[in-house]
Protein backbone atom coordinates (compact mmCIF):
# COMPACT_ATOMS: atom_id res chain seq x y z
CA UNK A 1 0.00 0.00 0.00
CA UNK A 2 1.54 3.25 -1.07
CA UNK A 3 1.63 6.31 1.16
CA UNK A 4 -1.02 7.97 -1.04
CA UNK A 5 -3.45 5.06 -0.57
CA UNK A 6 -2.86 5.08 3.18
CA UNK A 7 -3.59 8.80 3.38
CA UNK A 8 -6.74 8.46 1.25
CA UNK A 9 -8.15 5.64 3.35
CA UNK A 10 -7.27 6.81 6.85
CA UNK A 11 -7.59 10.59 6.34
CA UNK A 12 -9.73 11.03 3.22
CA UNK A 13 -12.63 8.77 4.22
CA UNK A 14 -13.05 10.13 7.78
CA UNK A 15 -12.81 13.68 6.48
CA UNK A 16 -15.44 12.98 3.80
CA UNK A 17 -17.81 11.51 6.42
CA UNK A 18 -17.39 14.52 8.71
CA UNK A 19 -17.93 17.02 5.90
CA UNK A 20 -21.07 15.25 4.60
CA UNK A 21 -22.70 14.88 8.03
CA UNK A 22 -21.69 18.40 9.06
CA UNK A 23 -23.12 19.82 5.85
CA UNK A 24 -26.42 18.01 6.39
CA UNK A 25 -26.64 19.37 9.93
CA UNK A 26 -26.16 22.92 8.65
CA UNK A 27 -28.82 22.61 5.95
CA UNK A 28 -31.52 21.08 8.17
CA UNK A 29 -33.62 22.98 10.71
CA UNK A 30 -32.50 23.01 14.32
CA UNK A 31 -35.98 22.02 15.50
CA UNK A 32 -38.07 18.94 14.66
CA UNK A 33 -41.12 20.97 13.64
CA UNK A 34 -42.48 24.46 13.08
CA UNK A 35 -41.64 27.01 15.80
CA UNK A 36 -43.45 30.30 16.55
CA UNK A 37 -40.52 32.45 15.42
CA UNK A 38 -40.71 30.97 11.91
CA UNK A 39 -43.14 33.84 11.29
CA UNK A 40 -42.00 36.62 13.64
CA UNK A 41 -44.71 38.98 14.76
CA UNK A 42 -44.83 42.33 12.97
CA UNK A 43 -47.04 45.24 13.94
CA UNK A 44 -49.16 45.09 10.79
CA UNK A 45 -50.71 41.85 12.11
CA UNK A 46 -53.29 41.41 14.83
CA UNK A 47 -51.90 40.34 18.23
CA UNK A 48 -53.65 37.01 18.80
CA UNK A 49 -51.37 35.57 21.46
CA UNK A 50 -51.68 35.53 25.23
CA UNK A 51 -50.38 38.39 27.38
CA UNK A 52 -46.63 38.40 28.07
CA UNK A 53 -44.79 39.85 31.05
CA UNK A 54 -41.01 39.97 30.94
CA UNK A 55 -38.34 41.07 33.35
CA UNK A 56 -34.78 40.05 34.14
CA UNK A 57 -35.63 37.59 36.92
CA UNK A 58 -32.08 36.98 38.11
CA UNK A 59 -31.39 40.65 38.81
CA UNK A 60 -32.01 42.10 42.25
CA UNK A 61 -32.92 45.74 42.72
CA UNK A 62 -32.22 45.86 46.47
CA UNK A 63 -29.09 43.82 47.14
CA UNK A 64 -28.40 45.74 50.34
CA UNK A 65 -31.70 45.38 52.13
CA UNK A 66 -34.09 42.65 53.09
CA UNK A 67 -37.29 42.33 51.10
CA UNK A 68 -40.06 43.99 53.03
CA UNK A 69 -43.30 42.18 53.60
CA UNK A 70 -46.78 43.01 54.70
CA UNK A 71 -47.31 46.61 53.71
CA UNK A 72 -48.24 46.23 50.09
CA UNK A 73 -50.02 49.26 48.70
CA UNK A 74 -53.69 48.57 48.16
CA UNK A 75 -54.60 50.93 45.33
CA UNK A 76 -52.72 51.50 42.12
CA UNK A 77 -53.26 55.27 42.41
CA UNK A 78 -50.95 55.37 45.47
CA UNK A 79 -48.37 53.24 43.71
CA UNK A 80 -48.03 55.10 40.41
CA UNK A 81 -45.24 57.67 40.39
CA UNK A 82 -44.90 58.62 36.75
CA UNK A 83 -47.11 58.19 33.69
CA UNK A 84 -46.60 58.48 29.96
CA UNK A 85 -48.74 57.32 27.04
CA UNK A 86 -48.48 57.27 23.30
CA UNK A 87 -50.24 56.11 20.15
CA UNK A 88 -48.83 55.25 16.78
Amino acid at each position, binding site marked *: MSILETTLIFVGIPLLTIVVLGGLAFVQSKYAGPIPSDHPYTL*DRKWEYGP*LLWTATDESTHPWKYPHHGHAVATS*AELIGGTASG*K*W
Partner: protein
Amino acid sequence: MASGDVIQRPAIAPENLPHGAALTASGRVSTVRVLGAPFEGAPFTEQDLITLDDTLIGAIRATKVRFNVYIGDAADPVATTDALLPTTPDAENSVLVAVYPNQRSIEIRSGREAADRATDQVLQLGVTAAVSAFGQGNLLDGITSAVSVIANAMVAP
Protein backbone atom coordinates in the same frame (compact mmCIF):
# COMPACT_ATOMS: atom_id res chain seq x y z
CA MET B 1 -31.95 29.18 45.94
CA ALA B 2 -28.68 30.94 46.66
CA SER B 3 -28.36 32.67 49.99
CA GLY B 4 -29.19 36.36 49.94
CA ASP B 5 -31.64 36.11 47.08
CA VAL B 6 -34.74 38.25 47.23
CA ILE B 7 -37.62 35.85 47.78
CA GLN B 8 -40.52 36.73 45.56
CA ARG B 9 -43.89 35.19 45.03
CA PRO B 10 -43.82 33.24 41.73
CA ALA B 11 -46.34 34.26 39.07
CA ILE B 12 -47.86 30.77 39.16
CA ALA B 13 -48.27 28.80 42.38
CA PRO B 14 -46.29 25.53 42.15
CA GLU B 15 -49.43 23.43 42.67
CA ASN B 16 -51.15 25.06 39.67
CA LEU B 17 -48.37 24.29 37.19
CA PRO B 18 -49.37 22.21 34.14
CA HIS B 19 -48.19 18.64 33.65
CA GLY B 20 -44.46 18.38 33.08
CA ALA B 21 -43.64 21.90 34.26
CA ALA B 22 -41.28 22.92 37.04
CA LEU B 23 -40.48 26.22 38.73
CA THR B 24 -36.75 26.92 38.64
CA ALA B 25 -34.81 28.80 41.32
CA SER B 26 -34.82 32.00 39.26
CA GLY B 27 -38.63 32.01 38.99
CA ARG B 28 -38.67 30.83 35.38
CA VAL B 29 -41.11 28.02 34.52
CA SER B 30 -39.49 25.15 32.64
CA THR B 31 -41.94 23.01 30.64
CA VAL B 32 -41.58 19.77 28.69
CA ARG B 33 -42.72 19.50 25.10
CA VAL B 34 -44.47 16.25 24.23
CA LEU B 35 -42.84 14.46 21.29
CA GLY B 36 -44.57 15.56 18.09
CA ALA B 37 -46.44 18.44 19.69
CA PRO B 38 -45.84 21.88 18.16
CA PHE B 39 -43.50 24.33 19.91
CA GLU B 40 -45.28 27.07 21.83
CA GLY B 41 -43.90 30.44 22.75
CA ALA B 42 -43.63 34.06 21.86
CA PRO B 43 -43.60 34.75 18.11
CA PHE B 44 -40.27 36.54 18.17
CA THR B 45 -36.85 35.63 16.84
CA GLU B 46 -34.29 34.33 19.29
CA GLN B 47 -31.96 37.26 18.56
CA ASP B 48 -34.63 39.87 19.34
CA LEU B 49 -35.45 38.15 22.64
CA ILE B 50 -31.78 37.95 23.62
CA THR B 51 -31.34 41.66 22.84
CA LEU B 52 -34.36 42.52 24.99
CA ASP B 53 -33.07 40.35 27.84
CA ASP B 54 -29.63 41.96 27.70
CA THR B 55 -31.21 45.42 27.66
CA LEU B 56 -33.40 44.61 30.69
CA ILE B 57 -30.41 43.24 32.63
CA GLY B 58 -28.31 46.29 31.77
CA ALA B 59 -31.09 48.71 32.69
CA ILE B 60 -31.77 47.05 36.06
CA ARG B 61 -28.06 46.91 36.96
CA ALA B 62 -27.46 50.53 35.99
CA THR B 63 -30.48 52.01 37.77
CA LYS B 64 -31.33 49.49 40.54
CA VAL B 65 -34.93 49.89 39.37
CA ARG B 66 -36.84 46.88 38.04
CA PHE B 67 -37.94 47.15 34.41
CA ASN B 68 -41.01 45.10 33.42
CA VAL B 69 -42.29 44.67 29.87
CA TYR B 70 -45.89 43.70 29.13
CA ILE B 71 -47.53 42.92 25.79
CA GLY B 72 -51.24 42.27 25.70
CA ASP B 73 -54.67 43.07 24.38
CA ALA B 74 -57.09 45.31 26.29
CA ALA B 75 -60.13 47.40 25.51
CA ASP B 76 -58.91 50.24 27.74
CA PRO B 77 -55.08 50.37 27.79
CA VAL B 78 -54.88 53.17 30.39
CA ALA B 79 -57.05 51.47 33.01
CA THR B 80 -55.52 48.06 32.29
CA THR B 81 -52.00 49.35 32.80
CA ASP B 82 -52.96 51.11 36.04
CA ALA B 83 -54.45 47.85 37.32
CA LEU B 84 -51.48 45.83 36.09
CA LEU B 85 -48.75 47.79 37.90
CA PRO B 86 -49.50 46.51 41.46
CA THR B 87 -49.33 42.91 40.20
CA THR B 88 -45.84 43.22 38.69
CA PRO B 89 -42.68 42.28 40.62
CA ASP B 90 -41.06 45.08 42.68
CA ALA B 91 -43.95 47.34 41.67
CA GLU B 92 -42.98 50.22 43.99
CA ASN B 93 -39.47 50.44 42.59
CA SER B 94 -40.15 49.63 38.95
CA VAL B 95 -40.82 50.93 35.47
CA LEU B 96 -43.55 49.12 33.54
CA VAL B 97 -43.57 49.34 29.73
CA ALA B 98 -46.95 48.05 28.50
CA VAL B 99 -47.67 47.75 24.77
CA TYR B 100 -51.07 46.98 23.23
CA PRO B 101 -50.48 46.22 19.53
CA ASN B 102 -54.19 45.86 18.68
CA GLN B 103 -54.99 49.25 20.19
CA ARG B 104 -51.76 50.76 18.74
CA SER B 105 -51.06 52.11 22.19
CA ILE B 106 -48.07 52.22 24.56
CA GLU B 107 -48.38 53.00 28.27
CA ILE B 108 -45.43 53.47 30.64
CA ARG B 109 -45.76 53.68 34.44
CA SER B 110 -43.20 54.06 37.19
CA GLY B 111 -43.63 53.08 40.83
CA ARG B 112 -43.53 55.77 43.50
CA GLU B 113 -40.05 54.82 44.80
CA ALA B 114 -38.60 55.19 41.30
CA ALA B 115 -40.62 58.30 40.48
CA ASP B 116 -37.94 60.81 41.56
CA ARG B 117 -35.74 59.59 38.70
CA ALA B 118 -38.32 58.04 36.33
CA THR B 119 -40.34 61.23 36.00
CA ASP B 120 -43.10 61.85 33.48
CA GLN B 121 -40.61 63.60 31.17
CA VAL B 122 -38.16 60.67 31.27
CA LEU B 123 -40.96 58.18 30.57
CA GLN B 124 -42.16 60.32 27.68
CA LEU B 125 -38.69 59.98 26.13
CA GLY B 126 -39.22 56.23 26.18
CA VAL B 127 -42.61 56.56 24.51
CA THR B 128 -41.10 58.71 21.76
CA ALA B 129 -38.26 56.23 21.18
CA ALA B 130 -40.66 53.29 21.05
CA VAL B 131 -43.20 54.92 18.74
CA SER B 132 -40.56 55.83 16.16
CA ALA B 133 -39.37 52.20 16.09
CA PHE B 134 -42.94 50.85 15.96
CA GLY B 135 -43.39 52.82 12.74
CA GLN B 136 -41.03 50.33 11.10
CA GLY B 137 -43.17 47.40 12.24
CA ASN B 138 -40.82 45.78 14.76
CA LEU B 139 -42.38 45.47 18.21
CA LEU B 140 -39.37 44.28 20.19
CA ASP B 141 -37.02 46.87 18.67
CA GLY B 142 -39.31 49.60 19.96
CA ILE B 143 -39.59 48.11 23.44
CA THR B 144 -35.85 47.59 23.64
CA SER B 145 -35.10 51.17 22.68
CA ALA B 146 -37.71 52.49 25.14
CA VAL B 147 -36.11 50.58 28.01
CA SER B 148 -32.58 51.68 27.15
CA VAL B 149 -33.58 55.32 26.62
CA ILE B 150 -35.38 55.46 29.99
CA ALA B 151 -32.49 53.75 31.79
CA ASN B 152 -29.94 56.11 30.23
CA ALA B 153 -32.03 59.16 31.10
CA MET B 154 -32.36 57.95 34.70
CA VAL B 155 -28.62 57.42 35.12
CA ALA B 156 -27.57 60.72 33.53
CA PRO B 157 -30.53 63.10 33.41
